[in-house]
């Protein structure tokens, strides 16, 4: 397991249940170290999105501690500070884009962080350049396609200059080409630590170093290699053959 002292983010025995509802997160322990690229895959309704919302304080834990570089995050003000460093990419990009133009949307975060108009514009242009979205600056956000929306939403998160990215099913509804572009982008972010929730195993293997699963409200860390067999089908399959 990881050592605690270099952890950017550490969750200690956190639990969460909705009022009068079942327990969604149950005594979950998890540590995210600098440079970690972790994938999380689990069935629907197993609490992955809830976990993300707990980390950034959109939901309040029922018990347990959340630490950011050994500092406990308790009050809303602490979470406010944390949200500067931990960027959350929502499942539905439409939730995240609320300004008429792309540039305004990307600049919204930096402006909220108290940057001047010029600084905010510089950062926004840099981020758009990094994602090869420069031509999008003056486009109308709600007239973008699904894939474009997702990339712009990523730009709005990156404009906050976070250390950690939490991506909630980033490939949902994207076509193959946009997925490949996302993979390439994520692999180019060498300075970022991220945690991706996804159902797509191929996407996770292409972008992360470790893949964990969730069960009964906790994260299962399984680092062992497993030999496994696949059933598969193709033409002339009945002939003896080898796959390379």
């Amino acid at each position, binding site marked *: 397991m990881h050592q605690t002292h270099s952890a950017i983010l550490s969750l200690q025995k956190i639990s969460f249940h909705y009022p009068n509802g079942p327990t969604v997160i149950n005594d979950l322990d998890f540590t995210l170290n600098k440079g970690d690229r972790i994938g999380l895959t689990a069935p629907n309704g197993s609490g992955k999105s809830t976990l993300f919302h707990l980390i950034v304080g*959109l939901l309040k834990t029922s018990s347990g501690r959340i630490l950011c570089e050994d500092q406990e995050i308790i009050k809303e003000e602490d979470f406010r500070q944390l949200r500067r460093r931990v960027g959350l990419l*929502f499942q539905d990009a439409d939730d995240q884009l609320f300004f008429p133009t792309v540039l305004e949307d990307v600049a919204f975060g930096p402006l*909220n962080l108290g940057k001047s108009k010029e600084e905010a514009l510089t950062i926004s242009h840099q981020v758009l350049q990094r994602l090869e979205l420069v031509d999008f600056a003056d486009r109308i956000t709600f007239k973008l396609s699904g894939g474009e929306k997702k990339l712009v939403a990523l730009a709005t998160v990156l404009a906050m200059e976070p250390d950690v990215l939490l991506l909630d099913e980033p490939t949902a509804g994207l076509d193959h080409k946009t997925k490949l572009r996302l993979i390439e982008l994520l692999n180019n972010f060498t300075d970022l630590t991220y945690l991706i929730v996804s159902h797509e195993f191929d996407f996770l293997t292409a972008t992360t170093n470790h893949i964990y699963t969730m069960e009964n409200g906790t994260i299962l860390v399984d680092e062992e290699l497993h030999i496994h067999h696949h059933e598969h089908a193709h033409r002339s399959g009945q002939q003896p053959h080898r796959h390379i």
Partner: protein
Amino acid sequence: MLQETFISQKSLIQNLTPWTRTLAVIISSTVIALSNNLSVLLPALGTALLLVSVAGLDFRQVGRRLLVLSGFLLMIWLILPFTYQGQIVWRISFLSVSHEGLLAATRLTLKTCSMLLIFLTLISTMSTADLAHALHSLKIPAKLVLLLLITYRYIFLIEDELQTLLRAAKVRNFKPGTTLHCYRTYAYLLGMLFVRAAERAQRVHQAMLCRGFNGRFHSLREYHNRSLDYGFLALVSIIAVLMTLCEWKVITLPTLF
């Protein structure tokens, strides 16, 4: 779907900054709304029509918008003349039409038409984003401006959701009619739309919190007023002052012409 028909119109009006246009609308509509004198309201309508032609708006499109208004005006004409107390000018069996009632209905018609025309020429020719920024620079509270911007942004999504729900109903052979089943279906559709809108609103708010939103609204756009803007504002102000003086009977219309 929401259409912004007049935005791409090229005219003198488009050369004015959103700030100037919004301020001009505020001044003129305040004066028109508070005036009661026909000799003020008639010239106001004339000026509004003049503005429409200067802006080069398509008269058919303008007419269609006035038609929407005519439903409301019809209600006023059906009710006011018969219910207003005053000197009776016409009697149809037990109904009586009062002079004051007719006058009030005329006033309201003139006011609404001229104000709508002014809004059409000055406001509907700019994008909602520009309007929001103009309101912001006119020191309208940030919360209201944000409300406008976000309503505009999400009205399309709500429309999308509605279409999705209607499609879902249609593929299961739902036909609009006047049966109880039909009304119940519509009620459920509407209820579902509200639930989805509320959930969406919550997620948007969360997304805003994640990006450090603290209730303040920053604007990136800057417009610079030129002499054309100041000229236009001066013209609007002069007309407004003349109308006010006319309303207060300081000057009367014949002396104007």
